[in-house]
């Protein structure tokens, strides 16, 4: 580990589903307070990488640390010890995740979705959790939809509830899987504002996105992935404006 300990660190992460190799040796460090955007073509393994960081997928080789703690295992010097569920859960609670398909709880209203974590996991008092939740919903522009069920929300509205739900846990780091894919440009601006504010508060973020303009706005560093590998990694401006690898260049030129 470096002197400036990264908040998220991946080393040789390898993951396959059956015979499909999805991540083929990923090395990545995200510093505290850094916003790291991951771009790359469809199927390149971006979503899978985020899921591994949250231990929703077990990896077949390599290691991941979040905030200095190894994900899923304890390092006992000569061997790795699988962590008990309780410990895995405690660590997950410190990482917020926004899914590409939202995965809101359909039997709960927007507000109930947002307070479920704080009340059920962090054991906050209901009143406090609801107040915080309402504040978060307002922040994503959904104050008046607090009592609507997900089914009655448009795609964009669902997406924003999902963001509020993850933020409600006051996580150390946030993982976003295409946070703007269902938003109109106006709302992208709003989410951008939210994310910038988060960044200013020192929130570490990994953001999978396919909107290069969005990456340019929000990212400190950009990672370009292709076929399960990191092709290019560096400060946002460098990667987007002056990419080194021909593959990245090809990808970016297609962006109109």
């Amino acid at each position: 580990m470096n002197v400036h300990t990264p908040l998220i660190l991946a080393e040789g992460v390898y993951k396959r589903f059956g015979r499909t190799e999805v991540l083929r040796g990923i090395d990545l460090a995200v510093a505290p307070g850094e916003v790291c955007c991951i771009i790359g073509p469809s199927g390149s393994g971006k979503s899978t990488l985020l899921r591994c960081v949250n231990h929703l997928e077990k990896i077949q080789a390599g290691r991941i640390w979040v905030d200095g703690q190894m994900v899923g295992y304890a390092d006992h010097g000569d061997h790795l010890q699988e962590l008990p569920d309780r410990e895995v859960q405690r660590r997950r609670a410190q990482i917020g995740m926004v899914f590409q398909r939202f995965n809101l709880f359909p039997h709960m209203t927007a507000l109930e979705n947002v307070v479920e974590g704080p009340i059920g996991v962090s054991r906050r008092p209901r009143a406090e959790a609801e107040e915080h939740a309402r504040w978060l919903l307002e922040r994503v522009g959904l104050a008046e939809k607090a009592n609507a069920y997900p089914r009655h929300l448009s795609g964009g509205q669902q997406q924003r509830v999902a963001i509020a739900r993850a933020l409600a846990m006051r996580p150390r780091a946030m993982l976003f899987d295409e946070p703007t894919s269902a938003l109109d440009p106006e709302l992208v601006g709003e989410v951008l504002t939210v994310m910038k504010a988060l960044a200013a508060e020192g929130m570490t973020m990994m953001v999978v996105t396919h909107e290069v303009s969005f990456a340019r706005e929000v990212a400190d560093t950009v990672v370009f992935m292709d076929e399960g590998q990191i092709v290019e990694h560096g400060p946002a401006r460098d990667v987007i404006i002056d990419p080194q690898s021909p593959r990245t260049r090809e990808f970016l030129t297609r962006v109109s």
Partner: protein
Amino acid sequence: MPVRPLRRPWRWGAGAVIIVVAALLARSIATNPRFEWSVAWDYVFSRQLAEGALMTLQLTVICMVIGVALGITLAIMRQSDLWLVRRAADLYVWFFRGTPVLVQIIFWFNLAALYPVIAVGVPGLEPWVTLDANTIITPMAAALLALGLNEAAYMSEIVRAGLLSVDDGQREAAQSLGMSRARIMRRIVLPQAMRVIIPPTGNETIGMLKTTALVSVVAVADLLYVTQTIYSQTFQTIPLLIAASIWYITLTTILSIGQARLEKRYSRGAHEVDTTPWTHRVRISLARFHAPVPRRLS
């Protein structure tokens, strides 16, 4: 311009046939002297049938509580990642679905014939506790044990189907919040599975009302047993069965209403449940055709 709804003459024809057939059947049933309606009515309000019905209801409630609780446990065990736990639950389901409940009742009731003394302890050593099987297993206990344990096997299949119906994304989203397995099950998965679990569970409950009749082999006097007892003395079979059926259908109606309530409660957020009473709905759809087109707004 007025809107004319689709003419569907065959539908109205079918409707008319249904009504006529229903009316004819109803008349024929009400007037057929062989049904001896007056005898049936007298028995409906007799003490004996009322007591039998109460016993049936008690047995049903207790056995379903055992069945549902154990059934959920078994369904969760069957998803365990420990092979032995999974197989033990499978074995349970296989065995209890496999043997007739009549055999199970007789077995529990007569445990004493097989094991006159139930000894708890370490094999080879002096037992810690020794119990006389005949004392602890009363007919009622045998009935509850047999029906409850048997029901659990069936319920576990129903719960399993319910769990299958919940999208994996739900579990993942809950996991990412750091929720524990137990809490995910209780707050996220089960409430969503309920929509799929409730209707077959209603079946089981209503079926149980009738299955309790099997306990008559150990002389627990449920509704059907009481009825049979009476008609095997008086030979008024049909009016007595009608009286019992009136009780059963009453209990079923109550349970069905409970089922509908539960279904509604667990469908919140899930899909459109039109709760408008139908009289109102007719008025709305009539009104729609006459409603003025709203002012042009753009």
